[in-house]
């Protein structure tokens, strides 16, 4: 077990007071930027890149690693309490999490998110330690045909979020797909739906849409209803801590979410969002109380939160072992490695083994630190809800404006926020579900590009989707997921 020995060596380095300090700084900063919509770990690490000139690589990567994990924690907090996801990976958390918060169960929701993130982060980091070579093989086995099949599989999960009127859910999905098509077509380089605006050529940023649909749409909706405006939210109803029942309902979703998230993070086009869709779908389908979904089911928070954190661990596998960045943050981390003259990839473990193992050890430590920091704060966070609504929403919109503006430093994006906010309001006003819109926006372009890439490689031969075994299996799974719930339903209490 040389990996274990090297990991212990890594712990020895990471546990110095100085490195613990860098880790603490990283996780704190990460939590903070995670809370803010628009400002994510990729942007923050990019802004912090100049410090690589002053810090030694071990300290810098310990801080960056903590920042990456911390952002995921912070983001779920605002997602649950304020229905304003800070990062795209916790959009799905907002669905059930915010409903829980509104019925006075915000504290258990935050707790299950924090513990789930810890469990997923720890297991994910363990998998990173011991299963990296295997996961890398999987990541490479996925070509365009396999990705297209995977996207179709992920699309079926939207069926769990379409709401009571299917046509309204489909409308939301279609709006998302249409928004995803805006900008330069990846494969032919021509503009679509840009209406002559150069700012639209790179597409509409997911952050702008998420903040518009969630934060702005929500604020407008509340402003339009006297009954919502004057309601006082009970910040805590029942226990502040998770009940025995909550634990019982959470642990399986944590593990399932972890299992879903890790491989997705490792896939070059996977990301942290798609496993949260899948996790939500599975938890709703497997729940003994599917009816509770839509009123604040704890499984709907526990699963997706575990999924996005384990995806973050997954992202590091191809980054460290192949030099393959699979997310925006990973791409910036790659730049950071290169700043130090290090080339992530096959030789990194040999050439700079101690650095890598210290980084991995510090991820375990950062993760534990986040749990210790976040759990006691749960009680403080829920107090956010007792701020008078006008001030609370005023603050949310100020930070939304700030976050959206700083994505591209562009006033044009604020104009887009105006439009997506209005759409978000209309969707709430006329009871359209918002989640399918996000699913369409994320999956639509990925499905399109990979379908067309696959057909380009095969010179227009559709049989690739059947002759590639992984693709075929994924298609069969997708069909099963659509048909099975109709034929067989879990017992409803």
């Amino acid at each position, binding site marked *: 077990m040389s990996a274990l020995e090297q990991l212990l060596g890594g712990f020895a380095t990471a546990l110095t007071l100085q490195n613990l300090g860098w880790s603490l700084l990283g996780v704190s900063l990460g939590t903070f930027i995670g809370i803010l919509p628009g400002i994510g770990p990729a942007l923050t690490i990019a802004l912090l890149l100049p410090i690589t000139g002053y810090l030694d690589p071990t300290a810098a990567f310990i801080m960056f690693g903590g920042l990456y994990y911390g952002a995921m924690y912070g983001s779920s907090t605002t997602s649950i309490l304020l229905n304003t996801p800070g990062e795209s990976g916790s959009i799905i958390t907002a669905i059930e999490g915010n409903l829980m918060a509104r019925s006075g169960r915000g504290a258990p929701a935050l707790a299950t998110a924090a513990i789930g993130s810890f469990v997923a982060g720890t297991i994910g980091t363990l998998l990173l330690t011991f299963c990296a070579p295997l996961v890398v093989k999987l990541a490479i086995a996925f070509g365009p045909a396999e990705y297209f099949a995977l996207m179709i599989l992920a699309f079926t999960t939207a069926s769990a979020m379409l709401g009571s009127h299917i046509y309204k859910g489909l*409308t939301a999905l279609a709006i998302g797909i249409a928004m995803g*098509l805006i900008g330069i077509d990846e494969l032919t380089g021509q503009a679509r739906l840009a209406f002559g605006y150069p700012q639209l050529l790179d597409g509409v940023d997911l952050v702008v849409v998420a903040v518009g649909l969630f934060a702005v749409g929500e604020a407008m909706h509340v*402003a339009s209803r006297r009954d919502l405006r004057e309601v006082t939210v009970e910040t805590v109803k029942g226990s502040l801590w998770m009940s025995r029942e909550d634990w019982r309902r959470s642990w399986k979703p944590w593990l399932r979410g972890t299992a879903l998230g890790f491989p997705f993070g490792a896939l070059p086009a996977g990301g942290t969002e798609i496993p949260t869709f899948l996790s939500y779908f599975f938890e709703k389908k497997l729940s003994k109380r599917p009816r509770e979904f839509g009123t604040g089911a704890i499984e709907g928070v526990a699963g997706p939160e575990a999924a996005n954190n384990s995806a973050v661990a997954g992202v590091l596998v191809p980054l460290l072992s192949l030099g393959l960045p699979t997310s925006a943050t990973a791409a910036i981390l790659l730049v950071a490695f290169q700043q130090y003259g290090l080339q992530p990839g096959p030789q990194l473990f040999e050439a700079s083994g101690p650095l890598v193992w210290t980084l991995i050890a510090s991820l375990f430590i950062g993760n534990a630190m986040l749990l210790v920091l976040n759990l006691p704060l749960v009680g403080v966070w829920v107090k956010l809800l007792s701020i008078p609504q006008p001030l609370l929403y005023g603050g949310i919109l100020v930070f939304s404006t700030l976050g959206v503006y700083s994505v591209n430093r562009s006033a044009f994006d604020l104009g887009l926020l*105006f439009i997506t906010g209005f759409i978000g309001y209309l969707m709430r006003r006329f009871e359209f579900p918002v989640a399918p819109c996000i699913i369409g926006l994320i999956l639509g372009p990925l499905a399109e590009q990979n379908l067309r890439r696959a057909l380009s490689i095969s010179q227009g031969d559709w049989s690739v989707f059947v002759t590639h075994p992984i693709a075929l299996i994924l298609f069969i799974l997708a069909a099963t997921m659509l048909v099975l719930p109709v034929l067989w339903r879990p017992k409803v209490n």
Partner: protein
Amino acid sequence: MTAQSRNWPELLLGLGIVLAGAIIGWQATSVKVAPIYAKVGPAAFLWFAAALLIGCGLIVAWRAAARPAGQGFELRGPMEILLALGLAAGLINLIGFIPVAILVFVLTSHALGSTQIVRDIIAGLILSIVAYLVFAMALGLRLPLGEVFA
């Protein structure tokens, strides 16, 4: 909006969705499809989204005609928030982040029923200065200070 049996706003929304679909379809006609190998070209998904929107929009409009309208929605609040965002988009480069943030804060809290404008202005001022300092100083993020003050 007298008839209880007709939901005019939702009917209009349905027609709006149909219109959006039509615009996407119209855009799809102007996309050039090079005759290289891919059978699914850059216009295919546009047509798909257009068709889905038109179909769903028609259903929304048709169902709306038979459903009573929702009650108790006010327009003033949401419009104030939209106004705030519109001003933010139009003015941020001109007057800078801090005044825009105060504007957004005050308008939003007014939209949500606040009547204490002085308190809101002070709260907005503090919040935006803190946000500005944290971002501009700690992260080196460049936020606009406003051209008129330059």
